[in-house]
């Protein structure tokens, strides 16, 4: 997917003078939270990566479509989509109706609902490589299961992954040096650079008959850095090597899933993995993840004992089925990338008119967006914070997400905010950047 596009038209309102938000209630609630919750808001929702955090809302009150409102009553056009799960827009009527109907019939029960089979059939019909499906809750549940299956299938220990790749929070995924991770947790993890087939070949040669699996995202989308697509022929060569050496090829499609290709992101890049992991967009915000696999691994998958108290909840499965049907009906990946292309190419032109280069990498449906003029990133961080405090929710450390509910009105408002903030920064810094 090329990021350069022609024919994008944009306009900004000359009357636009967006006001900045305040977050009194968010800050007050956060002080209460600090007393009873470690670091107030733990994990990827922690405000710590925001620069500065005081220009961001900490707590949401409600959401609808492409917007959410914080507890101070500030309204945001949401370009993080809950860090990916929201793909159709918040509170999508068909999805919510399906979830509520199933919930009223039964959700967490002593046996799985019929819906689990319906969903597995629909998911395997949707994702090109999938012959079977296994459901859990979070992305990390299924990336971990994928690695267990790879080890069980091959009788080998080692897993190859990409430096900077994110697959969840289990110790082996986080890497040595992170709090609570010991050397033994990563003793069988080998990391190599993205897009580097030669390194993979070297690792295979150095560990003959020892590598169980190779796990990577369809394209590289690390935090704090530009996204990178695979080089021509990269995945095809990786596939060849995995097949040749009996290595299970695992795709972590948790973030990209249904945002590049409805049939799975591997189809988009023209290869067939052995296992593929899904979460985020699969149920438009309802808690469910899925591991899908090829027939050859079904018997081994059946032998790996892996479960959780809430993994059989029927309502999220109903939500997932409704979401997948809607994603297919609207051909979501095409639509999301069309919306994203219009939005981001317009933003690029606005920034350029002030002398700022807005670099957009990755898919338009979930790009990493960055103003490049300042090597320290401080200008970019300030730009994101000022836009957020005016109602366009941008983060500086993570890729953004576009949902299908983003309207032309949202795009126009976002452009106006971007224009206001660029003007502000230009006035503040002149030609420094």
């Amino acid at each position: 997917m090329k990021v350069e596009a022609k024919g994008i038209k944009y306009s900004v309102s000359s009357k636009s003078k967006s006001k900045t938000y305040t977050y009194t209630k968010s800050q007050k609630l956060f002080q209460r939270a600090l007393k009873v919750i470690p670091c107030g808001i733990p994990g990827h929702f922690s405000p710590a990566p925001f620069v500065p955090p005081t220009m961001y809302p900490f707590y949401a009150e409600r959401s609808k479509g492409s917007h959410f409102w914080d507890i101070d009553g500030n309204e945001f056009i949401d370009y993080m989509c809950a860090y990916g799960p929201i793909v159709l827009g918040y509170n999508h009527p068909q999805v919510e109706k399906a979830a509520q109907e199933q919930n009223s019939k039964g959700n967490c029960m002593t046996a799985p609902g019929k819906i689990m089979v319906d969903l597995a059939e629909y998911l395997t019909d949707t994702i090109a490589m999938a012959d079977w499906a296994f459901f859990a809750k979070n992305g990390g549940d299924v990336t971990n299961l994928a690695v267990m299956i790879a080890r069980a299938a091959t009788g080998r220990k080692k897993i190859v992954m990409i430096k900077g790749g994110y697959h969840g929070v289990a110790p082996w995924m986080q890497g040595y040096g992170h709090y609570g991770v010991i050397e033994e947790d990563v003793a069988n993890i080998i990391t190599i650079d993205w897009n580097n087939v030669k390194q993979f070949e070297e690792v295979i040669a150095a560990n003959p008959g020892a590598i169980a699996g190779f796990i990577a995202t369809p394209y590289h989308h690390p935090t704090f850095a530009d996204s990178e697509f695979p080089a021509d022929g990269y995945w095809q060569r990786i596939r060849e090597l995995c097949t040749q050496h009996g290595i299970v090829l695992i795709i972590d499609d948790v973030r990209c899933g249904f945002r590049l290709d409805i049939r799975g992101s591997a189809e988009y890049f023209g290869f067939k993995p052995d296992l593929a992991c899904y979460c985020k967009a699969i149920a438009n915000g309802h808690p469910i993840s899925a591991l899908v696999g090829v027939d050859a691994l079904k018997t081994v998958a059946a032998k790996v004992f892996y479960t959780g108290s809430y993994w059989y909840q029927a309502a999220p499965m109903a939500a997932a089925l409704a979401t997948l049907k809607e994603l297919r009906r609207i051909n979501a990946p095409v639509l999301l990338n069309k919306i994203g292309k219009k939005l981001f190419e317009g933003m690029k032109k606005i920034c350029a008119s002030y002398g700022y280069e807005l670099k957009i990498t990755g898919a338009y449906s979930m790009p990493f967006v960055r103003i490049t003029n300042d090597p320290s990133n401080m200008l970019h961080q300030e730009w994101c914070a000022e836009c957020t405090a005016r109602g366009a929710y941008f983060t500086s450390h993570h890729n953004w997400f576009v949902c299908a509910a983003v309207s032309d009105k949202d795009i126009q408002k976002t452009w106006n905010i971007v224009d206001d903030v660029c003007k502000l920064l230009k006035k503040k810094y002149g030609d420094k950047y």
Partner: protein
Amino acid sequence: MDYEFIKSRLHLYAVLQNIEDLVQYDDVAKNLIKDWNIIVKFSVRKAGSVYLIFENGKCTVRELSPKKPDVILFFTSPAHLNKMFDGKANPIPLKGITKLGFLTKKFPKLTERLEYYLKPDEQKLKDKNYVTINTVMTLNTALYALKELLLFDPIGEHAAKKVKGSMVMMNVNKGPAAYIEQKGNTFEVHKGYAQQPLAVLEFTSIKIANDFLNGKMDAFSAIASGAVATKGHIEWLDAVSPVLDRVALYLS
């Protein structure tokens, strides 16, 4: 690298450099050294050496000295130096026997003063001036220790791979500052403000800095509440955060 080695490197290169600031900010120490014109070398077998250069009422601590030392204090091993810092061993004076008076009477008064500032307690922390000096020293110690840990500590070595080309500054708003930058295969630490820092950890006040650096404040909470500001390449701050936490494993 083993624990004693790393600990001795921290003592040599992260703790002793505080004498520079001690004689600058503490009137008692300043008065003690005002007439000193002497170079003292700490030499630790299999760990390294450092020169304390006293002249013109100032002290500079360097790995290399423009002149030969007047006094050499030798330590037979990293553990020997560490024991001295715990008050359980004495150095071997290899040179400067004629300056025994200096070594046994004058110099210990200075190191006692250093210890006074490096070991805070609730009573001492009621004194604003003490808090300021302790903060300056703790901040500098943190960055000099960070350098050693990035080079030799197992978790530090791992983090070092993630901070290629980095430059991280820690400062108190309108107050003391120091920064560390990666250069070639090593790191350099500088006291004062960087001209164009690439990553910044800024404390809003001396008190906040003191609480944060002495482990009395959770980093995430401090950042989220705005008491501590981070900006620039905050991924580098993330990478070195677990390493900074390890300073206490060696020096507490």
